[in-house]
């Protein structure tokens, strides 16, 4: 667990998660090998772009909404919903029940994952790499997170 509390959402927070995710072999097995996609994360009005290449999440950038046009898909929720999800992950060590990415997607009328381009082939990457994305956010259980 990182000592200093990191604020969500922020590049520092994502980088800390990225480090945990990239360095633990457990996150790259069990159906979660190489992953190649660009995923957006929209937390309220804040936009982050995560690039996954091979075994790693290679970069996280904070951007404007414009950057979402280049993402294969993006996951969008209000800050409070992200907070709930991360709290669930923190409590259990990984997402359980209604807080897995896929379930969040299905339980929301407009889904969690969407895209600017509307191309279902690229949006399907959310499913194709779902276990990797889940492990990425599950890795946040090791980060001391501060919200707001």
């Amino acid at each position, binding site marked *: 667990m990182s000592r200093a509390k990191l604020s969500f959402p922020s590049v520092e927070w994502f980088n800390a998660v990225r480090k945990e995710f990239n360095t633990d072999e457990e996150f790259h097995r069990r159906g979660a090998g190489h992953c190649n996609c660009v995923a957006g994360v929209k937390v309220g009005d804040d936009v982050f772009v995560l690039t996954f290449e091979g075994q790693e999440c290679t970069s996280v950038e904070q951007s404007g909404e414009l950057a979402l*046009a280049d993402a294969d898909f993006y996951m969008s929720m209000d800050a409070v919903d992200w907070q709930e999800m991360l709290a669930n992950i923190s409590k259990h060590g990984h997402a359980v029940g209604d807080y897995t990415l896929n379930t969040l997607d299905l339980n929301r009328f407009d889904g969690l994952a*969407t895209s600017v381009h509307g191309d279902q082939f690229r949006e399907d990457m959310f499913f194709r790499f779902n276990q990797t994305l889940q492990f990425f956010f599950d890795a946040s259980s090791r980060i001391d997170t501060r919200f707001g």
Partner: protein
Amino acid sequence: MVVLDSPRLWNRLQRKLAKKVKKKTEESTSTHVKQLKNFEAKKEEIEIPEPRLNWMGITREWGVKVLPGEKGLTLGSLNVGVYGEIPTTWSDRGRNPRGAIASGARLPLAISVQDKADLWANSAATLYEEAIQRRWIPATDIPWDQLAPLPDDIEHAICQVCTELMQYANTDIEVITNWQHKMAYGYHEVKQYLATASFDGARRYEAFRKRALSNGGGLGLESTCQVNRVLLESTGGWTETVATWVFNRLLFALTICRYLERFAYNEAEIKLYQYVGQDLARILSYGIDHLHYAMNADPEKRASVGISITIGDAFLVRDLRDPVLKEALSIIFGAGINGVNKDGLDTFYEMLDTYVKEYLELCAWLKLDRKLEQMPTIFQADKRKR
């Protein structure tokens, strides 16, 4: 591709894109709200049918609770109660899972292998799980960075052997995929194992191609086709196909890989031949186990298995009359053309003798009446012409 060399054009495009994103976000929000409203409004409109529940309680055996063991929850461990009853004939030509209740009305599939004796191997479920546990990835599990330039004659020889082994793998794939859909679903362990085996074949095909194309060489001359032909033209019986496959291809290919590993030039090749060897050994195990089961369950099969191997031998001899594989392997084993006379050719024949020895041991274990002196002379060390 549009080249944006004008800042004005770039800015305009940026604004346009930003607008698009904003619109999409707004649309998304309004769609969200609209959908919520629609859903709420439609909630009452949705006609809820009265459940018939006529499928409930329909089972041959209930209360089954198989627990995971040391190797997890394995396919073989599921064979309990009615689910483990594997009949000698599976007359159902549909896709009813074994142990489930078949639906009454259905059209038959073109399934022709319906007798257990024609495909079964007791080890199929174990081999299936083994294939999954021992999976490997040519892209990342082979240390390709360990390849280093080799003398041209050796590189030529390795590339030639890789080309031929690719074609072997291609035949393996086509043998399985020609037969798989003809096999009855009641013997799902075999079908499932063969699914992993065809995937293994794809991996071999890929791995040898990668080796040939990554060290300054390329692909060589295509393989001779004689054993390939016997295997692909064997359409009358799976057991007979397996007999030729086991004795005249898989065992031969495995022996080649074992020798290639022994004479590998770098760590990448060692790993490659080791991994491929494991995969070949697994399909060989299925084949041997099936032949064992088939000939015990149906003693008449002993004769057709024997004939299949005899035919296979004759065609392997035709393949071996072609000098290409022999020369390529001898160059590899002899560390170059100049070593062919010194060690290379001797090692090639040693390899052939190893193959024949294991072939005969296998015959003995399967109680197939076969003696060295009955085999073509190329397989007999004291009679062959080098």
